[in-house]
């Protein structure tokens, strides 16, 4: 392909975008909105997964011991638990300590627990850590089978809920993105159809002058790709700057939130969005051209 031909393609494509400026802006806007939704839900999913991972690694099993258990038995249980190969550590938390911790957690609202020191309703407990997350459930089952154990609790429920939320976000985001993506494809197809129509005379002339089909089509394909790329570029800019300003705000107010901040990961995501925008644009113009620029 000659350089002058390439220049011709780009000149024609940009001219067309300019001539149908309102429709061009509309199709860019729809691409931008659909990719904005896709991008934000992707970021949400990535972050939900990250937080779920963080929670999983800090999962702890709490074993509450029946009140009537004598201290000797408690010691026996502790050494029995420590003997298990998957156990990383065992901490004995007597009820007095549990109450103190609870009051400390409540801070200024500690008054609601006032007077409980006399008749502490909390049980004695063990806090057990395993080496890996998947050891938690079987270990918990075994702990429940011990006679003196009243209750076994671990954070599995929370992790599962978080993963469920991220799954839901993923599904809803995918559906919204698919619908808007289809709308974007067809809006671009309409834009291209209009510019084909506006230039039908010129296309007729090109054909009898011996222009190949691709020579006629390429500027329109390029026009669609420009629209798609421009739309996705807007989405990427909004997401990129929006996300990093969100992160810096959250880090100030909610420092314990473990958000994804790796720039490389975010940039890869944004590159994906740009490619997707390009693909949406190309698909839209191909649909239009298959119908209107037959050989």
């Amino acid at each position: 392909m000659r350089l002058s031909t390439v220049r011709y393609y780009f000149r024609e494509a940009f001219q067309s975008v300019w001539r149908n400026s309102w429709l061009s802006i509309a199709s860019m806007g729809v691409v931008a909105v659909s990719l904005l939704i896709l991008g934000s839900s992707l970021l949400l999913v990535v972050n939900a997964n990250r937080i779920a991972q963080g929670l999983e690694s800090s999962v702890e099993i709490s074993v509450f011991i029946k009140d009537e258990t004598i201290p000797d038995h408690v010691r026996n249980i502790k050494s029995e638990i420590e003997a298990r190969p998957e156990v990383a550590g065992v901490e004995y938390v007597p009820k007095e300590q549990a109450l103190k911790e609870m009051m400390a957690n409540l801070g200024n609202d500690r008054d609601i627990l006032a007077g409980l020191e006399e008749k502490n309703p909390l049980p004695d407990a063990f806090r057990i850590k395993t080496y890996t997350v998947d050891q938690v459930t079987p270990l918990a089952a075994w702990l429940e089978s011990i006679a003196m154990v009243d209750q076994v609790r671990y954070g599995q429920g929370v992790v599962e809920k978080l993963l469920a939320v991220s799954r839901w976000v993923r599904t809803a985001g995918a559906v919204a993105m698919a619908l808007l993506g289809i709308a974007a494809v067809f809006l671009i197809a309409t834009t291209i159809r209009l510019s084909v129509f506006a230039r039908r005379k010129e296309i007729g002339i090109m054909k009898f002058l011996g222009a190949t089909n691709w020579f006629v089509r390429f500027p329109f394909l390029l026009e669609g790709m420009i629209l798609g790329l421009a739309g996705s570029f807007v989405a990427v800019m909004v997401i990129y700057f929006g996300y990093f300003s969100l992160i810096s705000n959250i880090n100030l107010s909610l420092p314990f939130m473990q958000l994804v901040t790796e720039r490389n990961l975010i940039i890869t995501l944004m590159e994906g969005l740009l490619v997707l925008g390009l693909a949406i644009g190309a698909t839209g113009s191909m649909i239009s051209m298959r119908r209107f620029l037959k050989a």
Partner: protein
Amino acid sequence: MIQFNNVTKIYANGIKALNDITLRIRKGEFVFLVGPSGAGKSTLTKLLYREETPTRGQIIFDGKSLARVRPREVPYLRRKIGMVFQDFRLLPQKTVFENVAFALEVTGASNREIKKVVPVVLNLVSLMEKAESFPNYLSGGEQQRVCIARAIVNNPVLIIADEPTGNLDPDTSWDLMNLLLDINRRGTTIIMATHAWDIVDAMKKRVVALERGKIIRDEIKGVYSHEA
């Protein structure tokens, strides 16, 4: 160079535009196609540049059967044919130079080639001083000369002119005919469909007369009509 062997063209709506046409045109000939509107002149030219395909029969152009030309080869076939129309079909937003250059551009010619060839052709049709004008500011005769310049810039072996003088006054028409004769003398075959009987009679070229899809007359040095 051009051969129609028993060519029949029936359109989808059932109209029989050409009926068993057999015609042979040699390289370098100047042929007038005459006949009333709807006689099949346009269909005959459309078959040549493969805007249409024949229902029956065979067409050979430049040594190749058009039935064997695949769809993606059609553009290359058309580059061997220069087209001139009654309504000029110039691009109003392009200058005279750009309109002529466009025919080279669509074939992927380089800028250097375009800058070299277009002025030569514009000189040939005496329009060099109008190179930067837009078609709408030109007279009909000038516009038709741009059209001819565009048709010959690719060095075609054949020029098909469909009523090229239809929108021109008599004097301008004669200028145009002299230009076409000039091009013909350089070896380009010309097929011209026309209603301009005075031109046909004066030129004394081959005349092929069509009526209702049939060739009713084919004369060397012919005239438009033998009837009064």
